């Protein structure tokens, strides 16, 4: 516990030092010296940005504050601070369940999200890495064909494949199974493939050649040399993928309706809580649902922000 505290303190200190350094370099950088009309334009835009930021933050602050209120307190005072700060909504939120969620509690739904998003991320990042590495670095018949078809599938928009996919999943008896959901996520030729492909394409081949001379097999080279070398982009893609799968609504809502994830369950619970007028409980449930993702974002914000590219993020 003590070491965790130290690590957090160290991280805060590091972040502060970085921001100070950034502020210093910004102050002394010719690119950011502004005067006259340019300065005025930036001030106007700063005000617009602040209003935009407030429109995002304020509703969440309102939700947080009201999640600590009792029902009566909320009905009398929706805008102010709680008369009495209570945690009962949060305690109740973890055990909240409904017929619409197949009697899954929020805690169980969080568990489902951990399983689905976690396993889905591991499998899809692994298959994408395997495919991207081989297509980028090995010459074999059909390589260009595979690459061209993947590009085609990403560029050409095809609408309405959902009914066909549902029929196929039913035929494979994968509907309403965890494995079915993970199977859908496990494709190796999506945007992750493209990102890893460009990384592997630019990767130096020297280490691999040295390992080959030493008699290492292709599998050994991949797992012992390539994967550690690609650790950075793989971790970044995995985090972005994890957030995407955690927030995914479409796949679990159709293929895992009897075992809802938090994204699916929250929608069902919110409808029922609004119908019952239980807003304070709903607010606490919203916070519980987004807390894991916020923590993940806080821990890996730099990695996420530096590695986001087209298709990487979308709820």
């Amino acid at each position, binding site marked *: 516990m003590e070491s965790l505290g130290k690590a957090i303190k160290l991280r805060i200190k590091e972040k502060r030092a970085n921001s100070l350094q950034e502020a210093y370099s910004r102050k002394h950088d010719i690119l*950011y010296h502004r005067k006259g009309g340019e300065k005025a334009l930036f001030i106007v835009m700063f005000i617009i940005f602040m209003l935009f930021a407030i429109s995002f933050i304020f509703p969440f602050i309102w939700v947080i504050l009201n999640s600590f209120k009792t029902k009566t307190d909320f009905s009398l005072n*929706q805008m102010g601070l709680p008369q009495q700060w209570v945690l009962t909504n949060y305690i109740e939120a973890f055990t909240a369940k409904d017929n619409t969620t197949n009697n899954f509690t929020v805690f169980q739904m969080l568990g489902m999200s951990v399983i689905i998003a976690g396993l889905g991320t591991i499998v899809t990042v692994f298959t994408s890495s395997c495919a991207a590495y081989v297509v980028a670095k090995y010459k074999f018949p059909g390589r260009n064909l595979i690459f061209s*078809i993947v590009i085609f599938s990403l560029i050409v928009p095809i609408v309405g494949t959902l009914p066909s996919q549902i*029929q196929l999943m039913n035929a494979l008896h994968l509907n309403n199974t965890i494995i079915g959901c993970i199977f859908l996520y496990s494709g190796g030729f999506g945007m992750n493939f493209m990102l890893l492909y460009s990384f592997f394409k630019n990767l130096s081949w020297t280490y691999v050649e040295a390992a080959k001379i030493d008699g290492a097999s292709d599998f050994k080279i991949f797992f012992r040399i390539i994967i550690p070398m690609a650790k950075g982009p793989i971790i970044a893609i995995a985090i972005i993928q994890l957030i995407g799968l955690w927030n995914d609504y479409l796949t679990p809502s159709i293929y895992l309706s009897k075992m809802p994830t938090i994204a699916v369950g929250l929608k069902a619970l919110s409808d029922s809580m609004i119908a019952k007028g239980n*807003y304070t409980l709903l607010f606490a449930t919203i916070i519980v649902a987004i807390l894991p993702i916020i923590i993940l974002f806080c821990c890996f914000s730099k990695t996420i922000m530096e590695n986001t590219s087209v298709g990487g993020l979308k709820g």
Partner: protein
Amino acid sequence: MERIIESPKLNKNNKRRFHLKGTTVFVILMLLYPVAHFLLMWFGVNINSILLTFQMPVRGQLKWVEFNQLFYNYETLFMSFKTTETQEMFLASGVYFIISCLVTLPIALFFSYFVFKKILANGFFKIIFYLPSILPLVVLTLVYKLSFNPNNGLLSPLLNAFGIEAANLFIGSSAKWMVWIFCIWAGIGYDVILLTAGMSRIPRDILESCKMDGVPPLKEFFKIIIPLTWPTITTLFVLGMMSVFSVYMQPMFLTSGAAGTGTMTIGLKIYQQSRGQALNTPATLGLFCSLIGAPIIVATRAGLNKVYGDVDY
């Protein structure tokens, strides 16, 4: 007597053959699952999607249509074009082209210029722009909707002060406006992230030259930033065009595409109908939209790519 077993001499060719065999096995094993998955979930699903348009439900089960009624599903779809409901759906979907490509993208482009030029507190604003991508859409729509709740919403006192009845905002004709505003509000952040990432690749020398020559910000924006960020702009424009067919969650969470709201989209219709038995109807609608939309989108992409040629720096 001691037996000596001679190991086969490996000459250069044998070694290479062995090595090639090992590499072949490696390539096959590494590609086996991804290719099989792609064949099943892309080719298989798309071919099945076409086949579905030649089936119809009979006593709860999909059966092949009679030969003399081969295009039954297509005829039904074309007949539905005469109904106000379908016309409204196509119109409501088409509006997302305007929202994504002509409203959200230009605003985001302008915003990202200031983030890129390190406006005061740009680190904080970057996090704000990331929020819609980090938070589940269910939560965003829920908080947005709750804010406009007529009885105890965050904005209800403010709206009442202006004489606007918050009760009606998600019902009736105002509902579509609420969905559109949400799409712009939540969509700007995603575009800003990608555009800022695109702008960050612009060489510093070019920007320094602009500064030295006293180029005003707006001129720099239109003459330098936009041409050099064009590939990212093209991608986002194309994604915006695709939203005409793919938007379904925003209207579903905010209005459920209820009748009279004008918020039913092609994507939502396909999603809702896919949950039923008659899978032939959404499959036909989807295939029709793909046949119409895909060439337009691909042609637009090709056209946009030619505007500034290959951006190389």
